[in-house]
């Protein structure tokens, strides 16, 4: 794709000792961040990570952690303007009724 975002900002962490090599992370990651080698997952392209949280959400062994969210400037600016916190903002994609998350 040859499209990259800022380097060295991703909060993705892999606790290798907890990994069983099941390959779920490889399956769900939309940016090819992981690879399975020697029955363990490895992060092979950390700067490709967009912190969507698909891997940590679906790692059954708690080996992955990431401060996930949506990389959307509109939502963050709205968050700062309305609540003083970039993490609390919403944008059009939050749905007509923004009553928070359901999970």
């Amino acid at each position, binding site marked *: 794709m040859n*499209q990259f975002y800022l380097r060295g900002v991703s909060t993705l962490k892999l606790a290798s000792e907890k990994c069983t090599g099941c390959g779920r992370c490889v399956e769900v990651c939309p940016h*090819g961040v992981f690879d399975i080698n020697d029955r363990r997952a490895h992060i092979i392209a950390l700067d490709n990570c967009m912190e969507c949280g*698909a891997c940590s959400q679906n790692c059954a062994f708690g080996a992955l952690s990431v*401060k996930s969210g949506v*990389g959307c*400037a509109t939502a963050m600016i709205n968050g700062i303007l309305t609540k003083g916190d*970039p993490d609390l903002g919403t944008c059009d994609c939050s749905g007509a009724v923004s009553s928070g998350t359901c999970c």
Partner: protein
Amino acid sequence: MIASPKCDTAAPHLPPLNFMGDVLCRVSDKFRMKYSIKPGLYRIGNPSQESNVLVTANYRLTCNHVRKAMENRNVHVLVLNTRGINVWCAAGKGTFCTAEIVRQLTASDLGSKVSHRTLILPQLSASGVNASKLHKASGFTIKFGPIRASDIPAYLDNNFSATPDMRRVRFSIVDRAKLVPMEAVPALKTLGVFLLIAAILFGITRTGIIFKQALAGVWPIVVAGLTSVFTGSGLPPLLLPFIPGRAFSFKGFCTGLIGAVAVFLFLQPVRTDVFLAAFCLVAMPAFSSYQAFLFTGSTTFTSPSGVKAELKIALPLYLAGAGISLVLFAAALYRFWRFS
């Protein structure tokens, strides 16, 4: 024994394709927010108890993609209530989630309509759905299918295996071009308000607001503004990989600066008025940069940590830029009043 005729309890067909709708939702935000279908169980073709179950969002454009891909096939489609939002955004914002799948499974009584216990989810829903939690809560096993609906047939025919290519998100020039109107429309609205106020201010004379004078004063700013929307909402999406820098705010600044220099060189009123020239050279790159920065929300690869890092540097600059621009605008306006 003659079996009593079963009353028709088949789920409704997924609504037919809607080309006009698929175009309109790319242009009008109002239309897009209502471009949804009722959540629940649907079908494509005539699925049996053994047929696959696809799970998707209730954004009509999403459903249309699924329908187009699955033409001439028989499949159940469980449509979640994502409030009319696409799969990936809904998963990110928490409406395409484990609990909602359980809710729709119960409401549709899918368990009694299929003989298997497998759901096929779009890969991009994985950021909202926990497969093992769902299995515990419903007894259904999740398979994460491909990212794009158009790959579903190949995925199914390949015994539920997706190639690495199907698992990678793309962002081609065609994908990016489709997003341009939705970037440009809000920018044009903001610009319109500013230009209207500017025109009124330029038109003020001792005898009232004169239209001819308003036009004479504001037209260079109209050109400058439209140029900024082009360099901020048009060029960054289209030329994304070719514009220098990784930060979107920087990309938009670069294109905006080129636009500003062009306006300075080609517009005589800008070239000859030092305040107007300075206003264009500050406001145009700043406005362009801001629009490009907002495009982060539409891309397939920007991370929240990255956007936050950009925000920290860019936001103070935007505020400063806006302040300086207003002062320069006021100066240009004052001079216009005095000499016209």
